[in-house]
């Protein structure tokens, strides 16, 4: 479950290090110079839900996703992800939670010197899964995204669509409780986009809470679901 309540975000505001609670006044003072990129967001995404995140470029979709993936802490308000209050959590509590969140980045963010196999295996290895166990999962995941012939390819040797699929395989290989995707079909042709959407839908059917940011109306039309609409950092349409 993801719950936002009265959430505001400014970049440049001091992020609380190590979960230490700094004075509210100090945070406000440091942040006062920049405008809020997200304002007064309040919504709840139930566990197992599928939600579109819509809005023009610069509306704050990526910032909202970064809050959900624990890459940022809110400047004000409360963000609760999978049962943990992110603003008040200790820093050491976050890595474990991050392992339950799968993220597909718009720019893939694959590690360039690791093969497709190793990129997909990375979350499992970080979680301490033994080599013997993770191999089958990784191979199956790569086969399923159609890259079983490209196991040893490095990202720079792959097309944008192939990298996109590796990024998706990496995001779902741990069977995350929350799957966040930022324009996951941006680099794919129509059949591939359909397939990726089908995968994400299947993950959702298996119980994963899914949030997909996109500005493709075509994609939304294909899979009707509740949507969060952002405009200028504010929520303009809920559901």
């Amino acid at each position, binding site marked *: 479950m993801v719950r936002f309540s009265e959430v505001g975000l400014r970049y440049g505001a001091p992020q609380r290090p190590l979960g230490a609670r700094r004075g509210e006044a100090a945070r406000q003072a440091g942040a006062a110079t920049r405008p809020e990129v997200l304002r007064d967001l309040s919504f709840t995404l139930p566990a197992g839900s599928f939600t579109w995140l819509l809005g023009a470029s610069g509306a704050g979709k990526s910032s909202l996703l970064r809050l959900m993936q624990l890459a940022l802490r809110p400047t004000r308000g409360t963000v609760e992800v999978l049962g943990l209050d992110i603003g008040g959590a200790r820093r050491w509590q976050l*890595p474990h939670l991050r392992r339950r969140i799968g993220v597909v980045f718009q720019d893939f963010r694959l*590690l360039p*010197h690791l093969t497709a196999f*190793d990129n997909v295996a990375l979350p499992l290895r970080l979680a301490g899964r033994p080599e013997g166990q993770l191999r089958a*999962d990784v*191979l199956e995941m790569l086969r*399923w995204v*159609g890259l079983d012939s490209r196991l040893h390819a490095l990202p720079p040797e792959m097309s944008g669509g192939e990298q996109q699929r590796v990024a998706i395989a990496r995001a779902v290989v741990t069977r995350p409780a929350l799957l966040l995707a930022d324009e996951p079909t941006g680099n794919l042709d129509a059949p591939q986009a359909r397939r990726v959407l089908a995968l994400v839908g299947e993950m959702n059917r298996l119980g994963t809470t899914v949030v997909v940011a996109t500005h493709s109306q075509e994609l939304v039309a294909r899979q009707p679901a509740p949507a969060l609409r952002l405009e200028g950092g504010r929520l303009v349409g809920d559901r």
Partner: protein
Amino acid sequence: MSAIADRDAAPPAGLAAETRPAGGGPAGTPPGTASRPGRRRDRDPLGLRRALSDRLLPGLVAAMALLAALALGGARGAATLAARWQTGAAAAVLVQVPEPAAPAAPAEGAPAGGPPAARRLDAPPAARRLDGPPAARRLDAALAALRSIPSVSEARPMDDARMQALLRPWLGDAADLPLPGVIELRLDPDAALPEGADSLEARLAAVAPGALVESHGLWVARLGALARSLQAVSLAALLLVAGVAAAVVAVATRAGLIARREAIGVLHTLGATDGDIARRFARRVFALAGAGALMGAALAVPLLAGLAGLAAPLLGGAAGAGSGIGWAWAGLPWAELVALPPLAALIGWATAQLTVRRWLRRLP
């Protein structure tokens, strides 16, 4: 491209099932085909092999280790010199007391009552002869005065047989020559600043006019003090080198962190703990620093052996080439040299851990 579209969208079984039966990999993919490159590269997801180059850091650490080894050699050499000079024959101070048998001048430091014979005024002025009776009075008074000085650990008269043996090459068996009494002094090696020859002579003048202090031993004692200072300086240099090495490691680690900022961000997002990331850096730095220090220490060995060979004659070793090298070899600070690489590796490991963990605090 079309392959993916042709497949149906059913998710892999692994997504649906919480646990998988062993060997449940997809058919047609023999287990282990992908493991070899995977296992090899897994150790370096951050690409640290390139970010923390195996040239620069080991080179710098090797230079530091070489300096540390030289400082160690210096400390060892100074310690050996100090010990040798302070305990060996060279540490003795010789005091000549003319007319040793003449009655002592009255002095505070002199014993209250001497034997009655010593007060006789008719004693021959140069009574002491090599075969004569043992010297009395002035020599004894000088001895007593010297023994009352705190920094003098031992004062004893040189016996006649030894005097004779020493003088025979120059004087033959000239038994009739009047000879001064000679006192051999040993100075306390722990006394910070031994007394000067002048002050010793001044003390002796009261009881034994004309007493001469041969200051060679005093110089040796002062050299001993200098050697101890050198030893302290060497140890300070060692600490400084360790500090600089830690700073070098910190700078290199920060450069590596900045070069791998993106990859660290990815690992962080995937749920890597600070410990996970710090461990990867620290392991790499541990190996690089250890290897560098090993090179530096190895380089230092012949250098130190050469220096020790040069110092051998000063230290009582043989000056001859063959035995000198063997002696120098044994005199190297082997334990410290062997400890250098693991110590450098540990310093590197700890510094990298601290640097990475501090840097990672900027991430939420």
